């Protein structure tokens, strides 16, 4: 087994209503001994109360009263478990059509997507949507779990037909650089989820958990250029650190080293990295994901939202963005409306100049001329900015290629954008 100690793997799950998503998660928790006695007792008690003759694991994940009443998942829930190998975080996202925004939300923070299919139904409209959103967010590692194999008598031919159907979808997709793994399971009985199953003896691949345990971090990490956006400027103003100006931020992509020639945007000023620190220790280098603070050789003016990059890896610059928007608000998105555009730590006034078209999420890539985007719609838009943005295409650097739109009146996060 690959050594993954002290590493966290973030998963997200997508499935339609009744595909057994919560049951799958419950099964993983149960078979990895992650359910504590008191939680298990609560599940047993509740299952009995509801008159089920099996353990209803969905009760382990559906946290809100309304969810338990309706037997559905409304909001993204986060579930934690660990094996002796590493820790896992599952973002459990609802499968209803009207909750697309939740799937985008859950997928945006995960490294592996698990798409659930009901073996009786095969690839349906919803599966296509899940795969489409997964590809829009460029999730590289995908697990397709064909669930409820017990209800089709563990039939290999039927399973193969579903895989073949799914592969047609893959062939039609524009995102090629991904690893897709198919696994037949029965979450209700635990076949092939964590433990191998006699019922699926014909399946020669790994169980779902074996597969997850063997995913290597270096294979799923984004290979991107170093982008350091300043969150806040640290100025201690103490005797010991009299002239100290540290730029604090979380490195997105790549690596930074002391001595690197850098350019700061929007000013375009050039300098060199003088020091890299994490808490009270100095380092020679830092890689993507580290929350560091750096100092520069020159006394240049740097403030929140500024982007520091290596001088030979410059970002794109524009005041007119083209971006795919996933709309998340009850109020539809209309041309000429204004928003705050938040790009990491940078906030810019913005105006929707045009909605080019709405994109069908059923993986046909079909487009439709529209005047507005409603909640859960995806559309291609043109956005005018009050100040230039220094960015990368989302497909080159996720962290520097995505933004959110904030409603200027309600302050809510109304949509998320992926820059062309």
């Amino acid at each position: 087994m690959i050594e993954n100690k002290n590493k966290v793997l973030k998963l997200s799950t997508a499935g339609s209503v009744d595909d057994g998503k919560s049951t799958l998660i419950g099964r993983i928790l149960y078979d990895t001994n992650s359910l504590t006695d008191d939680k298990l007792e609560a599940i047993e008690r509740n299952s009995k109360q509801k008159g089920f003759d099996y353990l209803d694991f969905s009760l382990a994940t559906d946290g809100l009263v309304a969810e338990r009443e309706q037997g559905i998942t409304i909001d993204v829930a986060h579930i934690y478990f660990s094996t002796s190998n590493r820790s896992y975080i599952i973002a459990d996202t609802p499968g209803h059509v009207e909750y697309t925004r939740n799937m985008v939300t859950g997928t945006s923070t995960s490294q592996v997507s698990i798409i659930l299919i009901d073996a009786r139904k095969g690839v349906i409209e919803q599966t296509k949507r899940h795969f489409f959103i997964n590809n829009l967010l460029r999730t590289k590692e995908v697990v397709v779990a064909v669930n409820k194999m017990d209800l089709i008598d563990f039939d290999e031919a039927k399973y193969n037909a579903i895989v073949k159907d799914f592969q047609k979808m893959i062939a039609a997709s524009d995102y090629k650089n991904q690893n897709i793994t198919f696994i037949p399971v029965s979450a209700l009985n635990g076949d092939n989820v964590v433990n191998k199953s006699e019922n699926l003896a014909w399946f020669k691949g790994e169980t779902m958990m074996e597969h997850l345990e063997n995913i290597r971090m270096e294979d799923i990490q984004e290979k991107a250029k170093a982008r350091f956006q300043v969150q806040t400027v640290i100025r201690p103003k103490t005797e010991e650190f009299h002239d100290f100006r540290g730029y604090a931020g979380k490195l997105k992509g790549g690596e930074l080293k002391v001595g690197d020639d850098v350019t700061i945007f929007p000013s375009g000023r050039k300098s060199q990295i003088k020091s890299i620190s994490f808490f009270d220790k100095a380092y020679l280098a830092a890689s993507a994901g580290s929350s560091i603070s750096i100092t520069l050789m020159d006394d240049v003016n740097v403030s929140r939202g500024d982007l520091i990059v290596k001088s030979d890896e410059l970002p794109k610059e524009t005041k007119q963005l083209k971006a795919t928007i996933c709309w998340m608000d009850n109020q539809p998105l209309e041309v000429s409306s204004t928003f705050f555009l938040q790009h990491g730590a940078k906030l810019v006034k913005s105006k929707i100049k045009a909605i080019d078209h709405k994109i069908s999420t059923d993986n046909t890539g079909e487009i439709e001329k529209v005047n507005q985007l409603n909640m859960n719609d995806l559309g291609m838009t043109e956005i005018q900015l009050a100040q230039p943005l220094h960015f990368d295409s989302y497909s080159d650097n996720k962290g520097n290629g995505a933004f959110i739109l904030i409603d200027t009146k309600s302050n809510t996060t109304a949509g998320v954008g992926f820059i062309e």
Partner: protein
Amino acid sequence: MNDKVINNPLEDEAIYIFREVAAQFEKPVILFSGGKDSITLVRLAQKAFYPAKIPFPLLHIDTGHNFPETIEFRDQLVKELGLELHVHYVQDNIDAGNVQEESGKYASRNMLQTDSLLQAIEKHGFDACIGGARRDEEKARAKERVFSVRDDFGQWDEKNQRPEVFDMLNGRIDFGQNVRVFPISNWTELDVWSYIQKENMEIPSIYFAHKRNVFERDGLIWSAHDEYVFRAEDEIVTEKIVRFRTVGDMSCTAAVESYAFDIDKVVEEIAASTISERGARIDDKRSEAAMEKRKQQGYF
């Protein structure tokens, strides 16, 4: 000079969140109970802003039913780091007749904290309250955002939360609203203990095994501290070697029998535990939706 920063994704995420709070809000405060989670928060805040001081004060809602060890620890920490501490007493609210003390066998001041918290927020004008709640603790908390908006009455609208995509945190609010911030949302209990171990952090002594006078009720071990915790005549006091896994109000926190006298043993114990942390929180046992209800009303 050290080679390359070794990153711990959970720590990096928490530091990132602290820095967003400092940049996006005018008057943030760290909700500090003296428990291990809030001590961890203080440590992370130190790291986020070093070499500057932590740019937030601490706020403690004192139920008056605390473990004395926790209060001692709190005052020591505040002194060492040169922080500002605000304390609001639930007792003041009871004396003023704003809230009523619970009665009966399960009486606790845990619920009464909410009013004091909301008053403190209003009095000081705090716009961001940083708390040590974790999503793995309880299933209503599993639905909580990192930046969780509360209305003018401190209420949580769980069905209408702002989506949080990637790591972008939207802290824009109207005057009178506030945001509850949870930097260690994604940590588990074991993550916290492992961190305390790795960082060699000081924590209150009640987290380690010690002798204590206790009595048993409903399969849980309660502190025999008659002044704060109701005890019936037939509930007999014995001395046991126990420790606390979670520290709240004395009247709602049960002890566990343990011989974990040091941090290494505690980490071992937690890793092997088959009972969840909040299994020892008497306040969660009230109903299936106990936490969700309290959160809607403004509980942290």
